[in-house]
C-alpha cells in the first residue's frame, strides 16, 4: 500500500531521476526530509538537488522564477500553504505575468500543503486555491486521490507554466492505494468519481471523500448521487460539470475553502450562465464558515463541510 504523501514523494523522486533540470527547494526539506517527510531520503539520493532554504517565502519564489527563466524546473515546498502568502507577490505578480509580458515560460511547481486537520488552527489549515486561481497565468491543481497526487505532480513539473499544487494534509496518511498509476487523465479534465442520476456534487481535494461518504449514506435511502472530482481548479472542466447536470438536473458544489468568491461560486456561476435550462432546482453550494479556521476539533469539525452536512444539503436539494 502507498499513501498520498508517499505518492508525492515518489513523484518528486521520479522527476529528479528523469529530468536533470529538476531541483527541490524549501524549508527543512534536505536531510531532515521536510515537516511532513514529503522529501524524506531525497537529499541523500540526489546530492545538491534538494536544498534547504532560509525562511523566506518571497525569496524562495523569486529564486525559483530566476532559475526557471534559466532553464531549470524548480519544485518549491511551502511548509504550509498558509505561508505562501509571504511569497504571494512573487507568485502572482512575477511568475504569473512572466509568459504574457515576455514570451518566456516560467515552469515552476509550488507545492502547498493545504487544508485543515484537527488542532492545526488558523495559520496551518488554509485552502488558497481560489486566491491563486483569481490571477491569470497560473494553473491550480487539487488532487484528491493517491493516483492523482502522483500523476498530477509529475505533470505539474513537466508543464511549462507555473503550477500551484494544492495537496491536502488530511489525506497525507489517511489515503492509501494499492499501487502508483501508469496512466492518468490529463490536467484540465475532471473525473466522475461516482455515477448517479438524482443530483450532481461537484467537489475536489479532501471534500471528495466527505461527498463520497454522503452519497453512500443517501444510497441507503435510494438516492443516486453523481460525484465529480474537479482535479484541477484552473482550468476548470466546465464541460464535464454541465454534462452531469444535464443528466441529473441538480447541483451541489462543495469546497472546504471559505465561501466568498471561491471555487464553488465559480462552478455555480458557470452552471447558471451556461446551463440554466438544465436545472430542475436552484443550484446549491456548501463551504466552510466565513471565519478563520478554528483550532479545537469540536469547532473545526463544524467549521468545514462534512459527510453529514453534505448529506443534509443533498436532502434539501432533492426535495426542491
Amino acid at each position, binding site marked *: 500500500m502507498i499513501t498520498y504523501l508517499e505518492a508525492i514523494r515518489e513523484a518528486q523522486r521520479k522527476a529528479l531521476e528523469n529530468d536533470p533540470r529538476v*531541483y527541490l527547494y524549501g524549508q527543512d526539506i534536505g536531510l531532515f526530509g521536510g515537516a511532513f517527510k514529503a522529501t524524506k531520503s531525497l537529499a541523500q539520493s540526489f546530492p545538491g*538537488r534538494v536544498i534547504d*532554504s*532560509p525562511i*523566506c*517565502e*518571497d*525569496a*524562495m*519564489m*523569486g*529564486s*525559483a*522564477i*530566476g*532559475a*526557471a*527563466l*534559466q*532553464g*531549470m524546473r*524548480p519544485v518549491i515546498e511551502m511548509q504550509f500553504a498558509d505561508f505562501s502568502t*509571504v511569497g504571494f*507577490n*512573487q507568485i502572482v*505578480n*512575477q511568475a*504569473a*505575468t*512572466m*509568459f*504574457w*509580458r*515576455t514570451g*518566456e*515560460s516560467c515552469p515552476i511547481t509550488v507545492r502547498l500543503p493545504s487544508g485543515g486537520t484537527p488542532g492545526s488552527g488558523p495559520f496551518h489549515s488554509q485552502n488558497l486555491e481560489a486566491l491563486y486561481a483569481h490571477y*491569470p*497565468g497560473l*494553473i491550480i491543481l487539487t488532487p484528491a486521490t493517491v493516483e492523482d497526487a502522483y500523476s498530477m505532480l509529475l505533470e505539474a513539473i513537466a*508543464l*511549462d*507554466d507555473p503550477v500551484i499544487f494544492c495537496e491536502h494534509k488530511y489525506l497525507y496518511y489517511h489515503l492509501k492505494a494499492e499501487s502508483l498509476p501508469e496512466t492518468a487523465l490529463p*490536467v*484540465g479534465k475532471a473525473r466522475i468519481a461516482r455515477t448517479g442520476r438524482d443530483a450532481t456534487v461537484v467537489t475536489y481535494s479532501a471534500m471528495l471523500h466527505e461527498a463520497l461518504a454522503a452519497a453512500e449514506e443517501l444510497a441507503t435511502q435510494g438516492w443516486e448521487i453523481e460525484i465529480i472530482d474537479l482535479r484541477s481548479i*484552473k*482550468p*476548470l472542466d*466546465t464541460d464535464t460539470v454541465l454534462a452531469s447536470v444535464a443528466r441529473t438536473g441538480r447541483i451541489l458544489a462543495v469546497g472546504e475553502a471559505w465561501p466568498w468568491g471561491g471555487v464553488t461560486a465559480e462552478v455555480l*456561476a*458557470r452552471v447558471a*450562465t*451556461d446551463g440554466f435550462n438544465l436545472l430542475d432546482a436552484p443550484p446549491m453550494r456548501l463551504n466552510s464558515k466565513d471565519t478563520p479556521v478554528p483550532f479545537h476539533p469540536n469547532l473545526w469539525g463544524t467549521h468545514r463541510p462534512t459527510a453529514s452536512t453534505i448529506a443534509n444539503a443533498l436532502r434539501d436539494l432533492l426535495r426542491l
Partner: protein
Amino acid sequence: MLLARVAEEKIASLFRGGRITGGVFLGKGQEAISVATGIALKEGDIFAPLIRDQAGRLAFGESLLDFTLTYLGARSGPMRGRDGNVHRGRPRDGLLPMISHLGAMVSVVNGMLLAHRFQGKTGTVGAASLGDGATSTGAFHESLNQAAVEKLPLVLVVTNNQYAYSTPNDRQFACADLVDKAIGYGVNGHSVDGTDLAACLQVIGDAVRTAREGNGPQLVVASNLRLAGHGEHDDSHYISSHFKKLPLGRDCIEVAQSHLLRNGWADAPSLEVWARECAVQVDEAVAFALREPAPDPALEEWCALSHRHLAEGNPGKP
C-alpha cells in the same frame, strides 16, 4: 551616460507633448552609478535594472530601440504593448523586466545565478539595482540573506538619492549609513560617491570582480541626489535646497565632463560633437518607433499561459 541623458530628455519632451501614455521615469543624476554597473557586466551576466537605469541598460547592451518602442507602446517592442516604459527586458539576454514591487527582482537574480551553478556555468555575476526606499522592504532582506547563505555572485547596487518618491531618508531608515547593513548579512560593503563616474567605475568594477572571483554577494551604496521628479508627473518641490548645494547634489555628467576636460582627455568641441551624435541616434530611434504599428486588440492573443490548450478564455460570455 550621455546617450541615456539625451534619450530620456527626448522621451520627457514627448511626454510633455502628450505623445507618451503612462509614466516617464528619468535617471537624471544617476547615470554615473548606473553606467558603471552596465560596463562592469559581461555577456552571460545578469542585470536587473530599476527605473533610473537607462544608462546601465545601454551599457549592458540593450538597444535604444527597445527603449523607444516600449515607451511608445509599439507592437514590435519587446513588451508588445503589454507592458510599458521601464518595465521592459529580455530575460534570455540576461536583462530582467522589472515589476513595480521594490526589491522583488533581487531574488530572481539569485535564482538565475543558482541555475548557472546547477548548469556548471562559472564566472558569471548578477547585478540588481535598488534605491534607498527598497532597502526597507522584506524582499530586500530575504533576497540579500538568501544570496549570502548561498554565497552567490550577486552585486546589489543601492543608489541612495535621498528620496523614495517624496519620502526623505530620515523617514525611510534609522541606521547611520545604508552600507552598515552589509555586515548584518555577512557580505562585503562598498561606498561610493554616485556623482563621480571615475569613482563609480572603480568601486563597481572592484565589487563585480570580487563577486566574480567567488567571494559572495557585494553590497554597493552610492550617494547622490535625484535631479528630476520621481516621474515626469512630479515637480519634486519637496527636494530640499540644502542638498542641491552639497557635493552629492552635483550633476554626474557635468562632473564627468569637467574630469575629461581637466585631464585633457577631451576638449569642449568634442563634447559638443558627442552630444550631437547622441541626439541623432535618439531622433532616429524615436522616429522609427513612431512609425511602428500600435498593438491591435483584435490580433492580441489574450492568453496568459504558454500551454494554450489549458487557457480558460472568458467563461459565461454568450
